[in-house]
């Protein structure tokens, strides 16, 4: 056994020394960073080096001790010697552990030596860090030792491990790095865990160590190590193809855990208002009455459409920065539709807007771009309730036969909605259409889009109600002056707000116009816009009309 140990040291000693120099170089670089930026704890340099560069060192050591012996035929020579399997397994494992532990210990002690002069480094904390690093080392090394016995599959195994770890993030397990994986003892920076050591990491570390040890033992003992021998034999093209396919399939399916795992409901701590088919939560008392009305209206529509459960919705009170009274929160929630609501606005309009958003979500957010479905969603909430300002709004529409999307771009949401309401009210066989379009909850993606379009075939024609052109003249769009001083908007008389959207160049036309930046311009005739002439942007003006309880907007000017 001693001879075996000496042979391994002589054979690999120089390579290990070279790898150690590289590891220490990384450590030294980490010192430079910590000292240069005056980070709070120099000891972080060693633990970060061990956490990030240490695994490469561990893999290299096991590559030399296990894989190189196999590939160069040394293992067959050793098998012919009077050495037991336990010796042949234990010596490389113990030597590897000693090399890795010594290297990591060197990193830690060298850093501690410097740190003790720079900052307070109590012995108790140093001991605690040693235990954490020891657990980390044991798990990484034993697992790497086990995986090294999988022969030419070892890269594939690590690849699958990597994808597994990445795929687990955001799935059933919260923060797998510090809860279930073998790197848990150092997953959090040591200065964070100084007063609360991560001793709960002992369990996953023990389990992963066991996995590594059992893997090595099982492969070496099963039919006299036939599998290991076969896996280290030269590969055929077919075997290589098989590995490539497995690797690619693993890559392809790695996002699936995150996709299919039930996402935690980030709003579940809020109580829902009582409803049969709706789940409406109010994140504030001022929006509770609105939530109750929304739930009631959704129940009515749900009964008509045959929907048992609408998507969850959270109403989030806010009083600032909304160009309308309802807006989607920017931070998306996968399980709920989160809407910012200004409760000081007109209640019926807010309820209609909220319900419209829920209906849109029911179509996987796809209905807004499908002709007919957009109008049905816009008009349905208003069609089920009396609307005293409907005729007043219709008076502003000069081309009532235009598609809903065009009306919205030309006149703004409030006027376009009135046309949609009028059309839905005169829609023949409305319950059947509602059930067809909204009866089934859609997901996202191309198949859902095709399904929504299919369910709405013929709907635009069915919604083509005959309406009289209105007599009111709308707002003129703003003029734009581009000069060396930048871009200025010329504001037409009567306008109160300029809406500005700096467009994403990849989405250059109006889809993004739902969330403009409102700039008050009452009484002004021009305004400097914070845009670069090379950017794509859109501008319009609008004015509040009390008679229609809504905004009259100009057409968008897109540059």
């Amino acid at each position, binding site marked *: 056994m001693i001879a075996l140990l000496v042979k391994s040291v002589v054979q690999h000693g120089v390579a290990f020394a070279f790898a150690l120099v590289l590891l220490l170089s*990384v450590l030294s*670089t980490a010192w430079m960073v910590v000292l240069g930026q005056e980070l709070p704890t120099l000891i972080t340099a060693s633990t970060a080096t061990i956490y990030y560069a240490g695994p490469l060192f561990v893999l290299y050591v096991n590559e030399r001790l296990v894989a190189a012996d196999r590939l160069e035929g040394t293992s067959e020579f050793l098998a012919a010697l009077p050495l037991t399997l336990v010796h042949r397994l234990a010596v490389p494992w113990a030597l590897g552990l000693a090399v890795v532990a010594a290297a990591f210990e060197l990193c830690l002690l060298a850093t501690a030596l410097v740190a003790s002069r720079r900052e307070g480094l109590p012995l108790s904390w140093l001991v605690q860090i040693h235990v954490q690093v020891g657990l980390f080392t044991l798990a990484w090394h034993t697992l790497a030792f086990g995986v090294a016995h999988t022969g030419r599959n070892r890269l594939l195994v690590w690849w699958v491990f990597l994808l597994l770890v990445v795929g687990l993030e955001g799935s059933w397990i919260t923060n797998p790095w510090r809860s279930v994986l073998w790197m848990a003892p150092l997953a959090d920076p040591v200065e964070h865990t100084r007063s609360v050591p991560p001793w709960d990491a002992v369990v996953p570390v023990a389990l992963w160590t066991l996995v590594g040890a059992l893997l090595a033992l099982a492969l070496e003992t099963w039919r006299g190590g036939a599998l290991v021998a076969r896996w280290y034999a030269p590969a055929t093209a077919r075997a290589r193809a098989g590995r490539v396919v497995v690797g690619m399939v693993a890559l392809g399916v790695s996002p699936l855990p995150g996709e299919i795992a039930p996402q935690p409901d*980030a709003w579940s701590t809020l109580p829902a208002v009582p409803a049969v088919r709706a789940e409406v939560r109010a994140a504030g008392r001022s929006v509770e009455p609105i939530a109750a009305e929304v739930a009631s209206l959704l129940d009515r529509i749900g009964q008509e459409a045959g929907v048992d459960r609408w998507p969850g919705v959270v109403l989030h009170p806010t009083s600032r920065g909304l160009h309308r009274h309802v807006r989607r929160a920017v931070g998306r929630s996968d399980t709920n539709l989160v809407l*910012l609501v200004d409760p000081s606005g007109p209640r019926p309009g807010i309820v209609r807007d909220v319900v419209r958003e829920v209906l849109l979500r029911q179509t996987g957010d796809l209905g807004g771009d499908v002709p007919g479905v957009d109008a049905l969603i816009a008009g349905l909430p208003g069609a089920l309730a009396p609307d005293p300002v409907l005729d007043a709004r219709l008076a502003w529409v000069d081309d009532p036969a235009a598609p809903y999307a065009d009306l919205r771009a030309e006149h703004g949401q409030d006027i376009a909605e009135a046309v949609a309401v009028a059309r839905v009210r005169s829609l023949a066989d409305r319950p059947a259409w509602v059930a067809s379009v909204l009866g089934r909850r859609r997901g996202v993606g191309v198949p859902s889009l095709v399904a929504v379009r299919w369910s709405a075939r013929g709907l635009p024609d069915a919604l083509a109600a005959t309406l009289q052109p209105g007599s009111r003249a709308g707002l003129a769009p703003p003029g734009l002056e581009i000069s060396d001083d930048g871009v200025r908007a010329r504001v037409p008389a009567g306008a109160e707000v300029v809406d500005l959207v700096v467009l994403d160049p990849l989405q250059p036309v109006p889809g993004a116009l739902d969330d403009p930046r409102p700039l008050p311009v009452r009484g002004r005739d021009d305004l400097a816009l914070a845009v670069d002439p090379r950017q794509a942007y859109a501008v319009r003006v609008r004015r509040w009309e009390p008679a229609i309880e809504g905004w009259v907007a100009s057409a968008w000017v897109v540059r």
Partner: protein
Amino acid sequence: MSPRAWPALLVKETLALVPHWVGMVTLITLFGLVQLFDGSLTLGAVSGRVSAGAEAALTVFMLAFAAGHATVGPEFYADHIEMLDALPVRRVEIFVAKALASLAPVVVTVGMSLGWDLSSSWVSPGAPGADPFGEIVLAHGLLLVAGVSGWALGMLGSWFGGLGWGVVLATLVFGGMAAIIVPPMRPYVVGFGSFASLVFVSREATHPIEPVVFWLVLSAMSVMVSGLLFLGPGGALTRRGSLATGAVRVGTVGCLTVVLVGFGGIGLLGLLLRAPQLLEPIAVERTEHFRILYDPDFVAQVVEATDGIDALSARIGEQVGNPVPVELDVELLGAQQNHAGVFTGGKLRLQRGADREVVAHELAHAHAFAVAGPAAWRQRKHTRFFDEGLASWVAARVAGKPGIPRRAAAIHALDPVQLDLLVEDDRWIAERDIAQPYPLGIVFVEALDEAGGVRVRSCVLREIGALGHREIAGLALWVTVADRCGFVLEDVFARFERLLEDAAADLPPLPELEASLQGTALRVVDRREAGFRLVCRFRSRPDAEVGTYEHVDVVDGRCELPLWQLPEETFGYQVGFRMDDDAVFDRWVEAPTP
């Protein structure tokens, strides 16, 4: 060679590349299927994906490298060349067949991707008026160039066996580093640069032509060299112990070692240069609950800052609601840039000359940590304004200057604070000033004080800690905490707004700022001419470290852009004004880099 031999030769070479065909087709099929169910594709323009061409180009480049690498050199390494020479075909014909067979999977992969994207754009055309066809074709043209380059370099690298992989990976890494140092190189660099990423100017997708020409010329040269080597001299290269292979091995491993060890050496040198400072004696003083470590040269300041620290800590504990004394190391030995001090979870690390207010601020964090527990840190993105506000509120009282900070009032007056933004720190930092939650947090704690004083403060901390393990939205967290602690969040926020508005009434008229880009400068105008000193601030990207923000004073109504700090295609700017030794900034604006 007989024309009938060509198909046989191509089939033979294609069969040798079955793993590569399988890998590429599997990958593109899986990506296509994922794309089919990708919501962002149907909700936005198809072109959203093609703009991030750099990642796709790297994938295609590496797959193509693998195909090229498996082609010519291995015939010599495996001694198959003698068998090939026995066939009734010339070497040049074998080379052409190998080249075509190994290029085919690359072309097919890019073609499949093109087919997927065009089909997707047909099914889901995106916003009305958008025309992704040109963008998709341009992006795939660039992908093909990346693929051809990878394939050609793979063939060249095959002469050095597995070492070819090391060479190409090292080249990509060094290229990426060069692109960081010399930004004009970015469009030339595959993977870590921006090759194949489309640039949009006034809604038109473009890409510089020079990198495309560069890669095509390099590819042609690589193929030519590989072809010449295949005709004869390649044997000498691949012979065991050949000089060329040895040189490449030493070059690659040596280069990487030199870089790594070089950095290590610089680190060691830095350590040696700092040795006098590191070897200076540190004074240590113990109190009942603290171990104070400090630079003896700063003894006067340290005494002033930490005099009676046990009593100070007890008083802060009362204000935060923690009756249990905290035991800590307090290091007055230097703190990182942009920080006067920091509580790490295990100790306080402060600037050498930190004053008593800073000590109090960090002690307040330590007491809050003791009440809330470490789990509370997981909710920091929802609670930073409260954590920092509470610590600043405590520190202001210790310093004898309680009340509403004028700066907070000015922030609110310039752009009213939204609660939904305040409780989502990532969004706050993306849109507004990262430092504003400190003064605003003081006002929030002041508003909360009316709801129940220390009882509510400690309850809030405890409940945040109790929710620390949950995935929870910011507002849901705060509504829940408010319910559990017996106050109404909206009432507190209404008080918060009232306090700010009352304080704003005492402010002088504030600037009304307008900014516009003029060439390489930002023109800043105060329409109200309120007399404040105006400032600009720049960052290269929304997630840039705050330490990399560049502050520029407005001179003659202009701020010159620090272009050397803005290597990306777009950058962010803020304009603001000085107030009370600090600055009040308007929102971030994104603009294309001139």
